[in-house]
């Protein structure tokens, strides 16, 4: 252990090595906690309750090695956003609160063979058409209006349902984690209330930080991996960020309440009720795992439908078929998820529920769970920045299995509260500035959302990615810059 320490207003972090900080185990903590950050990022992380929430996470039974905060970490509810916690799947627990409300909130990137020059001059037409055709905001409906029977099919089959109904092609499945279907999904474990919320929202962005963004590739840092991913400078790509909508939110709350009623003893040992967990092996743990996997399928279909609609919009705007524009899925990554995974812990293979809350799986080259298309180079990791800064494509780094249970950051990470953002920014001004200074065309249902998501409310995504790259948990492959952005 190095002598260097960082004092975060009462919580002392000891430096393990460059960019790795540890909060030593004390009191009822079952393990130490770790933060992966530069000192500049730590200065921001210490400003809210992130570190206390990270310490609280180490109280969960079965927590293995340490609870970890990624470089983009910030305060959430219960578990910090940017948190990774691996809980023993035999003797530990699974925590709906630590997965979060928006189960399988995530990001997918679709490529095109268009260049920025092909798009220039048509930004307004494109952003207007996307905004008119991709449902967003509250009460905007979905791409598919359906009954509960369809919801059940989607929950059970994921993107396979989309394939059968002509919303996907085989190639989309080959470029999605688990081929877009969690086989352990059990739709019967999702409540009627959750299904009722979901049936009007299949294929919709929602609001808050969710968006659809057309981007141009500005840099390719790694030629070999860039080529394997099919990314080139000046290429147009589309990034879609959303999750499981009301169905996922309701499922999380349904299970928090069930745990409160059935596992009060465990709950009473935890410092924050929002960490509510079901003991591994209990009926409720099995039920939640089946429900969560079903909600994961729902979120994948949600993003698939939005991608399908985006292909149709591009066909109309550019008067070419989407196949001719090579609008192929690069990859789809989940940000809020708990997955049973086998990891090497002190030389022993152990099955763990790896909770990633605002964190991305980042498996390296050679890992058997990386889709065949990317197994030689490592899985793509997509890190969205704010609507005024770049986003990144990384690849799973070779140190990720040892340092982070195969995980890295998920975005820039918020810096400023929504209430403060609204007092500092005006949506209309933010939109005008982005268009005039950076040629970024933004269209939103609500001006307040634009203010709440202004570029200044986020951390420096470049610094977050630099730390991921330096630690070798997610290596920089390419950078993109926004062209058109629609949001709720």
């Amino acid at each position, binding site marked *: 252990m190095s002598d260097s320490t960082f004092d975060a207003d009462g919580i002392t972090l000891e430096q393990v090595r460059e960019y790795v900080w540890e909060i030593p185990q004390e009191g009822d903590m079952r393990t130490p906690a770790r933060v992966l950050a530069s000192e500049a990022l730590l200065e921001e992380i210490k400003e809210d309750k992130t570190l206390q929430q990270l310490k609280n996470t180490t109280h969960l039974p079965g927590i293995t090695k340490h609870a970890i905060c990624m470089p983009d970490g910030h305060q959430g509810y219960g578990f910090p956003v940017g948190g990774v916690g691996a809980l023993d799947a035999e003797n530990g627990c699974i925590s709906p609160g630590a997965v979060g409300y928006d189960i399988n909130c995530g990001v997918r990137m679709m490529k095109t063979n268009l260049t920025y020059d092909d798009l220039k001059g048509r930004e307004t037409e494109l952003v207007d058409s996307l905004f008119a055709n991709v449902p967003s905001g509250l009460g905007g409906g979905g791409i598919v209006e359906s009954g509960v029977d369809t919801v059940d099919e989607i929950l059970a089959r994921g993107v396979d349902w989309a394939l059968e109904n002509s919303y996907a092609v085989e190639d989309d499945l080959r470029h999605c984690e688990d081929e877009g279907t969690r086989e352990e999904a059990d739709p019967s474990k999702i409540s009627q209330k959750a299904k009722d919320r979901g049936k009007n929202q299949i294929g919709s962005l929602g609001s808050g930080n969710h968006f659809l963004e057309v981007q141009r590739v500005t840099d390719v840092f790694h030629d070999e991996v860039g080529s394997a991913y099919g990314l080139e400078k000046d290429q147009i790509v589309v990034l879609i960020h959303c999750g499981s909508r009301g169905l996922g939110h309701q499922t999380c709350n349904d299970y928090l309440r069930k745990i409160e009623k059935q596992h009060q003893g465990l709950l009473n040992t935890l410092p924050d009720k929002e960490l509510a967990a079901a003991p591994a092996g209990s009926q409720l743990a099995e039920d939640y795992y089946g429900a969560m996997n079903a909600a994961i399928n729902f979120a994948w279909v949600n993003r698939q439908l939005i991608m399908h609609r985006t292909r149709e919009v591009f066909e109309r705007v550019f008067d070419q078929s989407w196949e001719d524009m090579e609008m192929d899925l690069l990859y789809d990554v989940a940000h809020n998820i708990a997955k049973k995974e086998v990891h090497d812990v002190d030389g022993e293979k152990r099955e763990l529920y790896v909770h990633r809350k605002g964190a991305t799986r980042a498996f390296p080259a050679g890992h058997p769970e990386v889709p065949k298309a990317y197994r030689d180079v490592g899985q793509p990791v997509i890190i969205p920045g704010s609507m005024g800064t770049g986003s990144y494509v990384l690849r799973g780094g070779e140190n990720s299995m040892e340092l982070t249970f195969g995980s890295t950051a998920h975005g820039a990470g918020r810096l400023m509260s929504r209430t*403060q953002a609204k007092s500092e920014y005006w949506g209309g001004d933010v939109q005008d500035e982005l268009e005039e200074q950076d040629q970024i065309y933004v269209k939103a249902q609500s001006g307040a959302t634009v203010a709440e998501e202004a570029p200044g409310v986020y951390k420096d995504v470049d610094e977050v990615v630099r730390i991921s790259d330096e630690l070798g948990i997610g290596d920089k492959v390419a950078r993109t810059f926004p062209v058109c952005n629609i949001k709720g």
Partner: protein
Amino acid sequence: MTPHQGQRFELREHTADIAVEAAGNTLEDVFAAVAEGLAAASCDETPDASGDRFSLSVTAESREALLFDYLDDLIYLRDVRVELPVDHRVETISHSDDADETACWTLEASARGVPLAEIDAREVKAVTYSEMRLERVDDEWEAYVVFDV
């Protein structure tokens, strides 16, 4: 969306989400004040007369669980009715000592549902238990609730 006499709320800072701090003369008042805070977090301005009133009733095993389930129900009803519930009235909160312990707190409330198509509303995803506080301080009730946005 001005709270009724005896109720008040403030939206509080939270890095990613939003918190409502509320107070009221009675338990009914503080529940309604938190619900008004939820509406305010969803929409800056709502029309005064639009939409019809609807009733809801909630049962739960404790006071805090009742507050959680009430707010959870309002968010559920927003999605399925496609209306933002505003002008909240909590008519009664009753507690039965000898009832089944799993559901001994009951609430009867109503709200006006403003069609989402008529307003510029943002999505509050869910109520959370994180840092939740509901307590009697001197002569009034206070509550603090974090919502996931």
